């Protein structure tokens, strides 16, 4: 047995020495561009799937009628396991789709993996594209090239309970400082109620505080990014947000673990007076027990009348580098992301359009989206567009910073410095 073990060890060492490099795949741009055949499309599955399927089916029928010999094969993949699906597709191009829907925060890491095709020229040649919201389009851009077409956006605004504020004679908050005072006042009067439900892990609720105070997550400096979390302005923003996660507003015991969804759930359950929720949460809130007792305004900025820059979330449609139907794929993206189908998606799903003019149209005829459109109009912001962001996100650097502060493990200065260091390390690890 000893001989066997030694032999095995020697064999392993020999294999290692002969530099058996770990496997890599060749994810080169496909050279073929077939004009017929099947275009495979991945879209995210939804909790309420039917309306999405109906709109997509319509688009597929229109596309197939216009492109003879082309077929669209749509597969709905779960959002939760998207990382595995996309990585597998990048590693094995033969199992990859031609077109896919993906979250805009994932874009940079997909591009770094060489998975997404550059669609800058397609966007330039597309006449509808000039109406695309420039701030939103910028989220698809790396080094001046676009790697996706924004399909819909998601922004967050301030949901509040009209009845509670009225009872206490409180005015709708006009500044971020007001939000804090109103939240505290409501909880003082109703100790069983959260003043505003926010979460230690709800990064997109925290970002407006950071940006409204003039802070930044990171800024591009030459080839790399440098974290701005340890600046005075950022620290002010972080401090302002973490002040909400105190016993007199949203106790850390309860709220430190909340993500965005959990915070909104508290509001839906009637347990909080305010929350920062997305346009995509509106339907659920409007169908809940508080449906007649709430209203939405844009999250206010530091001064009255201003709007805090919101995080421009949303999904893009993109073409895979390995696609053997490059032109067809791009054409289908342009159809599904067109004004016509974005309008249809809004009508059936409530997804906010990415075209400025369509945004104005839907806001004019649908009062409930007005605060979200106003937020978009006031200018949005985004996470650093670099592959390192997904590493930072996965390691929980940004949310960990807030959680450390609200649980008393670190003060604002220490936590922000630590987070900035961790981020800079990740940015530098290229």
């Amino acid at each position: 047995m000893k001989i066997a073990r030694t032999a095995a060890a020697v064999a392993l060492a020999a294999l290692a020495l002969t530099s058996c490099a770990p496997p890599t795949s060749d994810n080169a741009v496909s050279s073929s561009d077939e004009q017929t055949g099947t275009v495979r499309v991945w879209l995210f599955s939804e909790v309420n799937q039917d309306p999405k399927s109906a709109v997509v089916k319509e688009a597929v029928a229109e596309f197939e009628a216009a492109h003879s010999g082309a077929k669209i094969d749509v597969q709905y993949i779960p959002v939760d396991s998207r990382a595995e699906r996309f990585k597998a597709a990048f590693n094995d191009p033969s199992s990859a789709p031609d077109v896919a829907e993906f979250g805009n925060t994932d874009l940079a890491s997909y591009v770094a993996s060489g998975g997404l095709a550059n669609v800058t020229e397609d966007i330039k040649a597309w006449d509808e594209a000039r109406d695309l919201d420039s701030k939103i389009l910028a989220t698809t851009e790396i080094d001046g090239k676009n790697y996706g077409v924004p399909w819909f956006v998601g922004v967050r605004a301030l949901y509040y309970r009209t009845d509670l504020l009225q009872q206490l004679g409180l005015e709708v908050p006009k500044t971020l400082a007001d939000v804090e005072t109103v939240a505290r006042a409501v909880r003082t009067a109703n100790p069983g109620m959260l003043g505003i439900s926010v979460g230690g892990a709800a990064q997109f609720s925290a970002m407006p505080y950071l940006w409204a105070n003039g802070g930044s997550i990171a800024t591009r400096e030459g080839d790399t990014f440098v974290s701005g979390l340890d600046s005075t302005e950022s620290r002010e923003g972080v401090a302002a947000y973490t002040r909400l996660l105190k016993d007199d507003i949203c106790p850390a015991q309860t709220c430190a673990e909340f993500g965005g969804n959990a915070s909104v759930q508290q509001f839906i359950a009637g347990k909080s007076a305010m929350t920062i929720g997305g346009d995509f949460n509106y339907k659920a809130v409007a169908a809940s027990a508080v449906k007649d007792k709430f209203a939405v305004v844009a999250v206010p900025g530091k001064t009255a009348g201003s709007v805090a820059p919101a995080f421009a979330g949303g999904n893009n449609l993109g073409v895979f580098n390995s696609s053997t139907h490059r032109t067809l794929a791009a054409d289908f993206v342009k159809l599904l992301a067109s004004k016509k189908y974005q309008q249809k998606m809004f009508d059936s799903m409530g997804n906010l359009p990415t075209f400025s003019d369509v945004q104005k149209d839907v806001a004019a005829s649908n009062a409930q989206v007005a605060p979200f459109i106003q937020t978009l109009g006031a200018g949005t912001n985004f996470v650093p567009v670099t592959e390192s962001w997904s590493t930072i996100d996965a390691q929980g650097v940004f949310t960990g910073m807030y959680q450390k502060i609200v649980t008393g493990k670190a003060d604002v200065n220490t936590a922000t410095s630590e987070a900035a260091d961790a981020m800079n390390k990740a940015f530098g690890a290229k």
Partner: protein
Amino acid sequence: MTALAPLQAESPRGNNSTRPSGTPTADSRPVRRSKVKRGLEPWLYLAPAFIVLIALLGYPIFQLINVSLYDYRQAQVSGKAPLRFTGLENYQKLFADPQFWTVLGNTVMFAAACVVLTLLVGSTLAVLATRLRPWVRSTLFIVSLGAWATPAVTGSAVWLFLFDPTLGLVNKTLVSIGLTQFAGHSWTYDKWSGFGLVASEVVWCSFPFVLVTVYAGIQAISTEVIEAARIDGATMPRIARSIMLPMLRPIVIVVTIQSIIWNFKIFSQIYIMTNGGGIAGQNLVLNVYGYQQAFAASLYGLGSALGVIMTALLMAITLVYLRILKRTGEAL
């Protein structure tokens, strides 16, 4: 697997040596040939097991070590960036990272607590089971087998429901008996309370294994031995200490090694119950940390280094145990 493989391997060779050698002739050459044959024969018997082991264990471990020596991220895997051999850089990075040491400490402490508690609960119940009436014993077994059969994911979800801050049965019960400070109490807010919650779930779903094994061990002790001791005037505690425990030792050791390995590798329970590692990563253990680095953050090289470290640690623990066994003359 690693613990048992060499021992299984030894038996065929042992049997073989007692067999008469090849056809006896006056010529010496066939004898030598048969000696060669005899040298090969055990390997032939072992071949199927070896092939399976190499395919299922050797190759993955080789790749794990291999990947850990490279700067291997998603960009490298999908061929966008060049593959770079970095030697031990990933290990250096880990060893220089204070978080790694915290996580390692967490893992060791958490695993140790789980092992001790599992063994304690399991053995106590096993001893109890030998003294219970048959129908009570059957009930105990059925209930614990139910816990054992519950998948880790389901078990964790159920425990989370039970310990939910606002809607959980535990908090509601505590409040109803007058402990109002538990209204809305989060069991995962504090690091140690979080670990305690997960540990209780782990013990709950792993004590039945100890219970069943130790119970079987106790049943296997022949009554004559106990009877003889009793006639010699040994008291019950003395019988337990000097007769039963030594006879149960091999079983206890196997169960301990198994528990150590299982609890060291815990993933699902921590991942689900503390939502991927707890507030600001306070409840991270090595396996979840490795997953976070390797798969969530796509740092495959760094994650593999973590995997290698874990494998090495577990091998070391197992080897130490086997050494102890051998020294006391109680090979498995």
